[in-house]
């Protein structure tokens, strides 16, 4: 059985598909956040050098991962929208930006709260921290540029350019701790090496990351639906939808 994928690239059919998926991802996010936080606070042991203070890792690392990953996804959708002129892809990119910015801010904020007691400083201008701050500016730049242009299709194109150019920052953030001397420590979890943390700690962190994924998908779908309604407000199907709810 062949699925007609192009059916769902039309904003109208995606609107209804997304509406069905949102509750599933919201429930998954709630359950996973519950389990992850429980493991993080009560099951995972304290750390040999940082004691209980390390527990902020259960928010900090998932947020930092999401900030980078969402940027790549956003740039990819924006790029697809630019190349193939598909309206829905650009709408998804626009919908991802605020969530990405939120996770970037969360990573920086929890990092500052963690840095003060452990390193002795809220903030230092090392390569990892600085490149993550640039990521926040890229998200804000993308959002402000799109907000500044009235015609949505032109806003999509301009936004796509800034999103694609900003992608070079992602490997810089990721490898900054390898390429340069930084105050920030190296990666505890990577694809090439076995994880450098106790198994329960790692489990909690991965569950929290999964929870952040589910949350991000749910929120992006909700936001995409809003954008679809806004941009398609003059179409017949949105008119019918309004008639049905009235």
């Amino acid at each position, binding site marked *: 059985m062949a699925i007609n994928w192009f059916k769902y690239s039309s904003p109208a059919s995606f609107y209804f598909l997304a509406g069905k998926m949102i509750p599933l991802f919201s429930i998954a996010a709630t359950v996973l956040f519950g389990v992850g936080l429980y493991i993080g606070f009560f099951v995972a042991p304290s750390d040999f050098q940082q004691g209980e203070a390390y527990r902020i890792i259960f928010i900090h690392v998932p947020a930092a991962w999401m900030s980078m990953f969402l940027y790549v996804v956003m740039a990819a959708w924006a790029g697809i929208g630019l190349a193939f002129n598909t309206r829905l892809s650009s709408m998804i990119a626009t919908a991802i930006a605020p969530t990405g910015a939120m996770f970037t801010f969360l990573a920086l904020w929890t990092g500052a709260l963690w840095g003060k*007691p452990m390193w002795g400083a809220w903030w230092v201008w090392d390569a990892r921290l600085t490149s993550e701050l640039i990521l926040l500016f890229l998200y804000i730049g993308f959002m402000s540029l799109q907000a500044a242009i009235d015609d949505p299709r032109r806003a999509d194109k301009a936004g796509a350019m800034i999103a694609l150019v900003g992608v070079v920052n992602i490997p810089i953030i990721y490898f900054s701790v390898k390429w340069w001397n930084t105050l920030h420590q190296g990666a505890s979890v990577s694809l090439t090496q076995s994880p450098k943390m106790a198994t329960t700690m790692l489990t909690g962190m991965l569950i929290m990351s999964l929870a952040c994924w589910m949350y991000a998908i749910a929120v992006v779908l909700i936001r995409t639906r809003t954008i679809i309604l806004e941009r398609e407000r003059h179409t017949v199907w949105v008119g019918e939808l309004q008639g049905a709810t009235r």
Partner: protein
Amino acid sequence: MKPRHKKLAIIASGVTALGVASILVLNAFQSNLVFFFSPSQVAAKEAPIGKSFRIGGLVEEGSVRRQSDGVTVNFVVTDTAKVIPVVYTGILPDLFKEGKGVVAQGKLANDGVFRADEVLAKHDENYMPPEAASALEQADKARKTVLMQ
């Protein structure tokens, strides 16, 4: 070539060109982006002279001495090849320990002593319960005694 494929090719080559450009720029900046210098780099005169900079390394075991005023501390930063003596007046971070990572900002005086005005602790990427850490330490000690015999 269809127009949309052409468009995709233009975007792809644009991103690639930008990537190559940034790799070249980063390569050129390599030496300027360091957050701290290691004692070996300082010994090789790579660190700026007469200006404030940061040194980083491990606090040498048994080198921490507190002076009689209670707030001035002497210690030695090592990268296991070269060492730099450091003097610092102020509050040390909790994670400041012998054998652990440290980053200090200050100036290198003519007598070769690094006068720090800020000391930060640099911890590593390992997280484990204290029991596991002490088990590892025991195993390490046992291995060393076996090797010495």
